[in-house]
């Protein structure tokens, strides 16, 4: 028998993941050369909302805290851009820093409010916070432009402001950097502890962790990157408005995460890409697109609650189990957990 040793297995998986990511990145870099300008616009929007979904998932999929108020962070980022770029000459880098600071600060507020709430209560507490933020955006006209929002956001201060392609590349770079930072964060001790929140909060508390502070960390990091996503969206659209803070966006980002696979790092991004593409496609075909969207939500809940990546992982596991029908492997028992799916290196699968 010349089965590969576990170490080799991990190495080859790492290598394969790196190759897959590298190829993906090359494809994404090349998109402006092949896509018509409209689809490049859509692709940029997917980058922004994909980043939003990934940031959301730090709290949701990893921290196990179902926030229904994340639009507040996204909208905050958009408003920071709107206000800073139309009323000041601040350079782009400063605006990005401001956005990060604002997102972090709001994240801390969310975290402090949610020190104790769980499950459905947390869901509604975050919803109430987001609605309050929405109320402020809508009514504090002096600052936010009220229902008209802030329009005419230009990309003058943005590095290489010129073409749509340049902005796409900038967005791509920022998204890649943000994802890498979040990835590293989730691998750090703090990130591991946040995942521990989901697994068993009481056990975490019993081992001496100060559970509350990790909730605040999770919201702060998630809030900061959600705000960056809002920043990208505002620059792309050229406007910021209360819709960026609306309840439906908070619900939608949860669907992104679930449909893609909330247990996986890249799941929410995938979900955002799928839903946004689908929305665009269906709304071009029929004015009854909200009905179709409803069907997608229902089917997601019924058949895809562990997401597209969860499905793929499951199917692969099953396929592998079939190929390994030899008695020795069978004796090793159900190895679902011990030998995680191939995608695992991109992932962080939930062990339930």
């Amino acid at each position, binding site marked *: 028998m010349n089965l590969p040793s576990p170490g080799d297995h991990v190495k080859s998986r790492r290598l394969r993941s790196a190759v897959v990511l590298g190829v993906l990145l090359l494809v994404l870099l090349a998109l402006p050369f092949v896509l*018509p*300008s*409209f689809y490049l*616009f*859509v692709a940029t*929007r997917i980058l922004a909302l994909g980043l939003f979904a990934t940031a959301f998932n730090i709290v949701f999929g990893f921290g196990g805290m179902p926030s229904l108020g994340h639009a507040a962070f996204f909208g905050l980022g958009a408003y920071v851009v709107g206000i800073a770029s139309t009323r000041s000459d601040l350079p782009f880098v400063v605006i990005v820093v401001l956005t990060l600071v604002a997102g972090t600060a709001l994240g801390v507020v969310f975290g402090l409010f949610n020190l104790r709430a769980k499950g459905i209560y947390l869901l509604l507490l975050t919803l109430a916070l987001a609605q309050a933020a929405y109320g402020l955006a*809508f*009514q504090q*006209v002096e600052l936010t432009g*009220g*229902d*008209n*929002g802030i*329009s*005419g956001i230009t990309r003058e201060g943005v590095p290489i402001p010129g073409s749509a392609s340049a902005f796409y590349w900038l967005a791509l770079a920022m998204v890649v950097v943000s994802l890498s930072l979040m990835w590293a964060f989730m691998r750090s001790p703090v990130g591991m502890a946040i995942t521990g929140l989901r697994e068993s909060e009481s056990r975490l508390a019993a081992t001496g962790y100060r559970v509350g502070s990790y909730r605040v960390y999770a919201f702060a990091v998630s809030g900061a990157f959600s705000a960056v996503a809002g920043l990208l*969206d505002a620059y792309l*659209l*050229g*406007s910021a*408005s*209360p*819709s*960026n803070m609306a309840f439906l966006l908070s619900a939608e980002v949860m669907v992104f995460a679930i449909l893609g696979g909330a247990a996986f790092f890249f799941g929410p991004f995938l979900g955002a890409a799928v839903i946004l593409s689908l929305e*665009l496609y269906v*709304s*071009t*075909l*029929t*004015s*009854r*697109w*909200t*009905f179709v969207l409803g*069907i997608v939500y*229902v*089917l997601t809940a*019924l058949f895809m609650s562990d997401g597209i990546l969860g499905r793929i992982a499951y199917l692969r596991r099953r396929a592998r189990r079939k190929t390994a029908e030899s008695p020795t492997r069978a004796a090793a028992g159900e190895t679902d957990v011990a030998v995680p799916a191939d995608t695992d290196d991109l992932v962080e699968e939930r062990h339930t």
Partner: protein
Amino acid sequence: MSKRRATRPLVALTAATLALAGCGSQAPSSGGVSADSGSGSAQEGANGSLTVGLLNPLTGPFAALGEDVNAGFELYLDSKGGQLSDYGINVVKEDPANDPGVATTKARQLVQQEGAGIVIGLVNSGVAYAVAPYLESAGVPLMITVAGADGLTRTKGGNLFRVSYTGSQDTMPAGDYVCKELGLKTAAIVGLDYSFGWEASGGFARTYEDAGCKVVQELYAPLATQDWAPYVTQINRDADVVFAVTPGSDAVRFLKAYRGFGLDTPIFAQGSTTDEQLLPTMGETADGVMSSLHYSPVIDNPANKTFVDAWTEKYDRSTNQYAEDGWAAAQALEAALSDVKGEPTGDGITNAMRNVSIDAPRGALRFDEYGQAIYDVYMRKVTKQDGKWVNKVVDTVPAVNQFYTYDVDEYLQFPPYDKLKGTWAK
């Protein structure tokens, strides 16, 4: 879980989808979105063809408005056999979904993918503000049919035109009228707490006070206020008149609460408060409410008769300002195209639009140098006629522009209405 069980939800969903398809085909107001809906696909006229992008809400809170604008536009187009001034018109409808992000995407789709040479529509002003800069940069004319923010038409020589009102345009004549003609000397203002509410209220308050009367109170309620009792009970009962800016379903709730709490001060409203879409639901509660608007279905002129006849043949409800906005937009486009020689380019249409002068159902309509429509404004009163509630025309103020009788430069120096809200009563 057995296979049989797993298929059950699918069956249910399929059934629901079929039911939906059935409903869709029955509903008079439902609009297909695809390019070949409405009036004949890929028309080629003697002069060429033009793709028109209709960007009106088909879902969400403004769906009823968007459907009627589209229906009005297509009705006119159909009455002309799908051609305007010998240009074949291809209509493509997209849904801005009441969201600036979606709307910006859809505007780009209309221009970059569908090749729209003009975009017509928009209800929500926030959405209009978000979309307009893109169309400007793309050199594609935009004709707004509902969105009312004053600030949208403040640039000279742009590519933007608006057949519908600015927030303050239809209420400025009302201030004069209520003070001088009706002799009601003190007013309490009840408006919705967003820019349209402030602009419409402010327009009224400006001319009302300049005419020598006094605004004694201002109350603003959030959009979609479910319970109007807190506001209605605060109204100053010593005022001679209540001026209301409560469009949409808020109007229904406002009037119901107003009557329920036994207030009997006469109401004068911005015309959208007593829109024909709402009158059947408001019924008795709207009786006697006066309002100002640039349209009423009972206007007596040949163009309106043509419009109302064509509309009532197809739909079993009254025309309204939104349907008329769509119809008038088609008329304006037709007039512009008759001036365009050859290929209808963005610049060609924009330049031709500036000189458009038509007899719309509302009466004479042309654009000022900012692209804003100039039209007659009607003073109306809700009355029962042949068993139906209508906005009976009691007076007409001719050729009202967005600055009313004020000097343009002086008017543009005024602080914006969102800064003035709350200051009128002081």
